[in-house]
């Protein structure tokens, strides 16, 4: 009589408190995969498990870790950032062009600039309510275009190598500095999330945006912040790439998009948002890197790499997806 007639006595589906076997398995998935991969590679090539090859693998993984860590924040909020690789490429060009004028400040300028660009995408997403994958897909092609135009579609050489030299050092003679920076980044961001209400807000936004908003969580600001950090991470990854390649190029990081997305989902972060962490993406990035360097070792042509990325992305998303949330999968 009085109330809206929708009233079905809402079925109280009581979710069992204990995680299912599948949930347990997926929560350890990245670590298991890492161990299995290491073991398999060692069996295939006993010479693999040496300090030098591990150091090299870890060093290659650093930019990927940074890219994936940043984008993980956006995924945790329930969105996706497809622009990271293109933004990273653009940032390498910026770095090469700005270095002569800014010198030692270039790194900070790059990170600030890419952070601002990321924020811009976040604002467009939040303000105009455009799905994040469209905003960032558009961003991707805009950043590529800018990079092509300002670099004249070719690599820009970096002459002054002192500015990035610090990233090529080794801590204690073994651990590459770039990887240490990546680790510190993951640890720092995770710590900030854990110690402040941010983690609560991000998870709430990712799990259930409307509930978060109705609980007064600053959903819009959290999302913009996530995009900002994602952009800034793309900038940092760019600096790492330049330190290795001594040049900036408009397509330098383009082939890192798929590995970065793969790293996030292999880590077990749910593409539907809420569930996951930066540490998981770190493990995921290591898995992806090991796959990359390991394939030739076991005698698989590197052409299979792409196929493998495709397969693991789909498989990992299928395993981690929160199906209770989306009734109709588009």
């Amino acid at each position, binding site marked *: 009589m009085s109330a809206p007639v929708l009233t079905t006595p809402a079925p109280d589906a009581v979710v069992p408190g204990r995680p299912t076997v599948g949930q347990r398995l997926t929560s350890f998935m990245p670590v298991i995969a890492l161990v299995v991969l290491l073991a398999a590679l060692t069996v295939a090539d006993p010479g693999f498990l040496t300090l030098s090859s591990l150091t090299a693998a870890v060093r290659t993984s650093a930019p990927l870790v940074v890219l994936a860590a940043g984008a993980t924040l956006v995924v945790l909020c329930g969105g996706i950032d497809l622009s990271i690789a293109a933004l990273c490429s653009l940032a390498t060009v910026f770095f090469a062009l700005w270095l002569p004028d800014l010198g030692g400040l270039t790194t900070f300028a790059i990170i600030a600039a890419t952070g601002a660009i990321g924020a811009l995408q976040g604002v467009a997403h939040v303000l105009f309510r455009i799905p994040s994958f469209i905003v960032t897909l558009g961003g991707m092609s805009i950043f590529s275009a800018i990079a092509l135009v300002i670099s004249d579609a070719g690599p820009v050489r970096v002459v002054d190598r002192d500015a990035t030299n610090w990233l090529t050092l080794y801590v204690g003679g073994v651990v590459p500095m770039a990887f240490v920076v990546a680790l510190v980044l993951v640890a720092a961001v995770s710590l900030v999330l854990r110690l402040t209400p941010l983690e609560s807000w991000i998870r709430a936004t990712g799990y259930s945006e409307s509930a978060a908003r109705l609980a007064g969580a600053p959903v819009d600001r959290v999302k913009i912040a996530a995009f900002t950090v994602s952009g800034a991470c793309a900038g940092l990854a760019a600096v790492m790439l330049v330190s290795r390649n001594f040049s900036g190029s408009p397509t330098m990081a383009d082939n890192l998009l798929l590995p970065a997305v793969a790293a996030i989902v292999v880590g077990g972060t749910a593409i539907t948002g809420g569930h996951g962490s930066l540490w998981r993406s770190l493990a995921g990035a290591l898995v992806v890197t090991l796959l990359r360097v390991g394939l030739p070792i076991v005698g698989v042509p590197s*052409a299979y790499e792409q196929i493998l990325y495709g397969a693991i992305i789909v498989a990992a*998303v299928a395993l981690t*997806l929160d199906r209770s949330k989306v009734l109709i*999968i588009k």
Partner: protein
Amino acid sequence: MTTTSPADADREVVHAGRPRPRRGISLSDAGPPIALVVIFGVFAVLSPDFRTVSNVQNVLDAAAVLAVVTCGISFVLMMGSIDLSAPGIMGASAIAVALLVANNRNDNDFGLFGVAVAVLLGAALGCLSGLALVVLKVPSFMTTLGVSAVGLGVATLMFAGVQPNVTDPMLEGWAVERFLGLAHLTWIAVACVLVGALVQRYSRLGRYAFAIGGAEEVLGLSGVRVAPYKVAVFTMAGAFYGLAGVLVTSQLGAGLVQAGRGYDFSAITAAVVGGTLLSGGRGGILHSVVGVLLVTVLTNGLVQVGVSPYWQGGVQGLIVVAAVAAAVLPQRRRNQVTK
């Protein structure tokens, strides 16, 4: 009332009814064609080179491949899904066709049969996206991203480090020989558009794709199983991408892994600009064709007035974001969930 007898059913033809367009012309339907005319006019005024007959031919020829890709993606977008697999599928089919027709790498000379196999390869890859969507329940933008990677991998495998150059006269001829002033490729694209429009209007597949975008849950309540139709739509889209890969190979005279680079985004741009909603249920092939022409005229016109061709992607990025924003903003609600 009893079931209609077959005799009754055959007695059609009387007045062939067609779905009637919405009454009155809404801005969203009339907007893209008007924009096309306006942009065309502006460039015609700005650039004497733009308003030549040969340039108009160029524009149409340049639009051919994009039109074929957009035909495929339109059906997917109509369902409310998204498809990022075009680059991978086109790459795979481009290499496949280059290796199957007369070429410098092997002794194959299968001609049209080779083209058909390449298209089928595209369809198979598209089917894979669809299956992953309905069986594994993975969102389409992830499955198609994955399938795109798989396609590129398959292409790289077949490429094997040596570029296959096409020596088949038929395939080479498609890009250069002209009929009524337009390249054969362009006519193939026109045929694709016609097929697409017919499928959309007269086939159950097309109508259900449209309905899935409109209200998927209602189809379930009416006893329609949507999963097979979703797979079929992705398969059909894959076939269109496969054909587009063949067309690119014909244009370049060689099979390239990167044959489809950027086409996914351009096609989404064209469809969205043409008035297809990303949430599904609105738009269609003819809308998308207008979008394709718009994008191509814009690209061509900007080059003609002296803008660097490198800006092409950037301009597309801007217009797609603007077009989606324009479509979404009027329906904006507070506490709306945007992913």
